[in-house]
């Protein structure tokens, strides 16, 4: 497998971007990230982005507001060095994240590649290889496109050590103004691992002060996730993810929300088992993101799973692995 430095050499500038310049928010945040010379300043810029409504993820906003994200920044200088250097840097930050997660202080990890070359590169096969290789350096295994790549996060609770499976997601500057614009990020490229199950467990422990009085962490996670999907912004081809009305897509399970839970209007009457999207939300490196044009792929997905957040039944491995945690 070629090293990252070689893969970066195959990138070409994005001609589409000339006719479709970055939005002001991406342009400004990218400029700020590229001009900063240390990770503390970069973190401040990226935290500002994650805190803003320019990105739709509510969990990320909670995590950043509560200081529960750990960052690993890779710059062009890093990318010119060996894969061993990149591995070591990612692994060091990952270990610190795991240590904090174990103590209930962090749920999310961000590997942010701050690179002018990447920010302005065409999303094509060469860029996909960079994304896959970055993921490989992080997860230490062969990475497949259009597949869920995940890792596992520890948490010590009163019963001992628990582990939460967490999916890894990919974001890029090239997403700005393209159909998958909810996956845009300033500065170049980003991998995130944000464990909802871990955060929900910390909500229950009281270490994440969400201002939420809800007793059920799983219902809390479902409500937050559905609210997030409900509030996604519309891109050039419509919303990337969306809730499905029960009237159109009936459910087979009883309503998982406790009777006393406050339900936002936007999610009332919406299917709590599946939702729709232009891409598969479980996948990490989606091949559909790495095409020079901005046309969405064919048929949207209408069966993206929500039950992993709450449905405690035998056989629902995703619930046990991602939300309830191994103990």
């Amino acid at each position: 497998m070629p090293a990252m430095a070689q893969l970066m050499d195959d990138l070409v500038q994005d001609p589409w971007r000339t006719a479709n310049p970055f939005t002001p928010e991406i342009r400004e945040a990218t400029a700020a990230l590229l001009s900063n010379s240390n990770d503390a300043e970069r973190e401040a810029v990226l935290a500002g982005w994650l805190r803003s409504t320019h990105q739709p993820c509510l969990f990320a906003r909670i995590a950043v507001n509560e200081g529960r994200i750990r960052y690993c920044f890779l710059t062009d200088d890093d990318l010119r060095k060996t894969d061993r250097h990149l591995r070591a840097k990612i692994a060091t930050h990952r270990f610190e994240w795991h240590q904090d997660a174990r103590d209930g202080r962090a749920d999310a990890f961000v590997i942010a590649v701050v690179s002018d070359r990447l920010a302005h590169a065409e999303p094509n096969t060469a860029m996909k290889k960079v994304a896959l290789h970055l993921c490989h350096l992080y997860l230490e295994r062969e990475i497949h496109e259009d597949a869920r790549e995940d890792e596992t996060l520890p948490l010590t609770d009163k019963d001992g050590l628990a582990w939460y499976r967490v999916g890894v997601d990919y974001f890029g500057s090239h997403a700005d103004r393209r159909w998958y614009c909810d996956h845009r990020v300033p500065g170049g490229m980003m991998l995130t691992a944000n464990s909802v199950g871990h955060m929900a467990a910390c909500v229950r422990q009281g270490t994440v002060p969400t201002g939420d009085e809800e007793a059920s962490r799983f219902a809390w996670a479902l409500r937050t996730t559905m609210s997030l999907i409900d509030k996604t912004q519309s891109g050039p081809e419509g919303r990337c993810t969306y809730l499905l009305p029960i009237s159109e897509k009936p459910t087979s399970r009883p309503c998982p929300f406790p009777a006393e839970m406050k339900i936002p209007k936007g999610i009332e009457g919406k299917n709590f088992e599946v939702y729709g999207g232009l891409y598969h939300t479980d996948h990490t490196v989606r091949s559909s993101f790495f095409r020079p044009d901005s046309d969405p792929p064919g048929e949207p997905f209408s069966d993206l799973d929500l039950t992993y957040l709450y449905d405690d039944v035998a056989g629902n491995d995703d619930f046990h692995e991602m939300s309830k945690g191994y103990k």
Partner: protein
Amino acid sequence: MDDLGSRLLGLESQLPHDRVPSFADLRALFEADRELFFSLVTAADEKSLGNSLRMLVRLARITAVLTRDGFEMATRSNQYIAEGTRGGFLPLVDAERDARLLEQLWSKSYLGDDFRGLKSAKGSMAEDQFFFGQFDWLDPIRRMRLFRVDAMDASAVVEGLPRYHKFQLLDSAQEVVVCPLIIGEGLRTDGPLKKGQAYYGKPRRRWLNDGTSVDAPASKLFAVYVDADGSVYDWDWKDESLCQPSSPVVVNTTPRLRYADARTDVAVLIVGNVFGQEVKPFRKGHPWYSVAGDCVFCYFEEREAYEERLDEFLTKYVAFDSGECVGFKLKYVSRLLDVVQRWSKQDDEAIVVHVQVDSVEVDLEFLMRAWLMRSLPKRLPLGAAMRLFEQLERNPKPEKVVIPREVAESV
């Protein structure tokens, strides 16, 4: 004895009795008893453990470091290893299966099987310690050294040295590198080996030419000699009394001896370029030059032997069974070659040094005479050396020492 102590004792009795434990044994333990696997890193003082268990603990600790720091798969000296991004080397046996276990530990994907009821240990204190515990052995493992056998020396092991050398390398040498008792610093008074080291230890077995083993000899230690770059070039038994830092006999000689420190003398030896190689018949009287050791090995008989140093240049090999000299090692060859090359410029001496494209060839006898010349006036009785000369002269077809030309020309 606490619960872990008794379980470790039970584990030690299950470890192989005819070879050193490998990563395959650790992998098997992971499958059979995950809790005990994780517990290995919490085992108390390494020195209190038997060598076999100590080696398994070492492998577990390296694994723990690699699954914290990240790792790369690599091939060194024909052996797969996993190399930690911040240091640490893990010799692998089955590249595919071993890499899979490392990946499982890195991502914790083994938990999938656990959860579905296939395994028992989950979220234990031992698991927590394996991944997050703070130990004083973490940084020494990141600084550990990787020893291997230079290609030229590996070739000698399988091309005609007495066969027991191969068995000793694959077993005893690996054991001593992980479990040394004494460390010798500085193998020569000058040159690259000035920073070489000797690892002395007590392996569990002594190997015979037929591939069987007997109990380790009393009052002897096994020595492994390694240059500053990590090339192991010699390994043999020698008298324990000559390896003791406190012994008055060894004062003012190389190497300088000290007791091994389990925290800092951390190394592992890979033998992939010898393991699995077919051993050719013994070559009587053939001189084997080692670049790493800058020495020549020569055996007249294929009998298991221990080493006995005559002086800083010459070590003889003494048969365990009869006490007879069956070979020798001549050191500082590049120095001696310098002397021979000066002689060879005088035509009437009939001393010829053949210069080939890649190598320089010289009679071993000339090197021996150069040693004799450098050593005069002798401080030691010459009897042993004279008998070596006699044995050399009895060799009907004396072979030349082949020294790589770059080594010869660097003299």
